[in-house]
């Protein structure tokens, strides 16, 4: 009899551990999307500043950008070698759908105009990205809370069903 309880205890622990693992992965994905969006916004602002005050090409500007977020750094490195459009379409990107859409739209016009229109392009997209980041920040806690609740309920349900 005691071995059965032991099995049930071990099973429940495994289910709880799985739920925790799923929640932590979900949590990491939510936070990663936010960090990636912040990094993208920093890049767009940086490109705008460089276009305004330097003669460098887009590739040189992106190469000189110091990224604080490893997954997007890989994308920027590829963008410096080819182009931002190409890197966004070929590399594994850490961005959420809206950030990716904004970056793709930005990259399709980047470099195709003279200084003033290009700095204005960067200003506009930086502003749109900041707005999106605010939305992500506002929803972050709710999303994490909902994610945690779902994990706990699913975990408990499974334990109750199996026990």
């Amino acid at each position, binding site marked *: 009899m005691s071995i059965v309880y032991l099995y049930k205890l071990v099973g429940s622990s495994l289910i709880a551990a799985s739920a925790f693992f799923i929640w932590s992965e979900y949590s990491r994905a939510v936070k990663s999307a936010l960090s990636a969006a912040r990094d993208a916004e920093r890049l767009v602002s940086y490109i705008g500043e460089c276009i305004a005050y330097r*003669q460098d*090409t887009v590739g040189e500007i992106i190469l000189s950008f110091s990224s604080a977020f490893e997954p997007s750094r890989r994308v920027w490195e590829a963008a410096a070698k080819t182009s931002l459009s190409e890197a966004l379409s070929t590399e594994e990107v850490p961005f959420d759908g809206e950030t990716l859409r904004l970056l793709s739209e930005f990259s399709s016009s980047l*470099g195709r105009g*003279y*200084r003033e229109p290009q700095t204005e392009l960067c200003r506009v997209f930086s502003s749109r990205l900041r707005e999106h980041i605010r939305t992500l920040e506002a929803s972050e806690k709710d999303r994490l809370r909902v994610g945690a609740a779902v994990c706990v309920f699913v975990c408990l349900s499974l334990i109750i069903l199996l026990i």
Partner: protein
Amino acid sequence: MKTETEKPKRDARSLALALLPSGVKSSVERALYSSGLSLSSLTDIRLRRDGASFITVGGVHRRLDTTLSPGEFDDFVFSLTGGSLFSHADTIREGYISVGGIRCGVCGRAALWNGEVGNVTDISSVSIRVPGDVPGCSSRVYELITRGGALSGALLYSPPGTGKTTLLRDLIRRLSADGRQLAVVDPRHELGSACVGMSADVLSGYPKDAGIVSAVRSLSPEIIICDELSGKRDAEAAVYSRSCGVPIVATAHAGTLSELRMRPETNALAGSGVFSYLVGLKRPPGKDMSFFINEP
């Protein structure tokens, strides 16, 4: 062109070909093949937005069997700028894009600001000047300006596309090999590639007048090399350099000496004593370069 060892470097020509869209590149290769001439004879590639494309090979213009659509042409111009039109705004305003030492002349629709070209939009033509590299082609000029041990100045004049810049590149190498301290004023980034590893200080991207004055004041050169003197300020800078004891070798556009004297600035320069020699260059299509030396 008369040379000691004619061994044109393929790198620059290959680089020029690499700038082209793949369809145009194949067309150029077909045109070269059908004309029986090699890549080393290629001097010019002219592409137009939705218009006829030509190459100049062995001094003869040959039409390419391809044209670029407006979209393809715009993408081509975009790629020439390294995906950064804004970073080439200053040179586009002056009519060219410089890519790795290759000058691509451009024209389009000019937007005027206070009567001057402010921006050029809707670029419609690109003329790629394929840089030549002909070791020894500057021998005649080198002998002139080094005659007697002291360096002398020279103004080289000829119509566009005769090989003045190629000659200057070779001259830089010759003078540098002698250990001469050169200042190279390179506003169009066409001479810098010849200066790698040489005893030359390169003032890259400087306006010519500012570059000459800066070189005299800061770099103590034995001689200044500058491509294409044109306006009054360039002429004044050349006079300043000579008056400070620094000879200058420069180029100017003119078919003959009398044409050179038609422009007030170059006429004044020719008679000012800035240059010890006025050297005319001529190269009829498919023939060697010849020199006409005048001592003003």
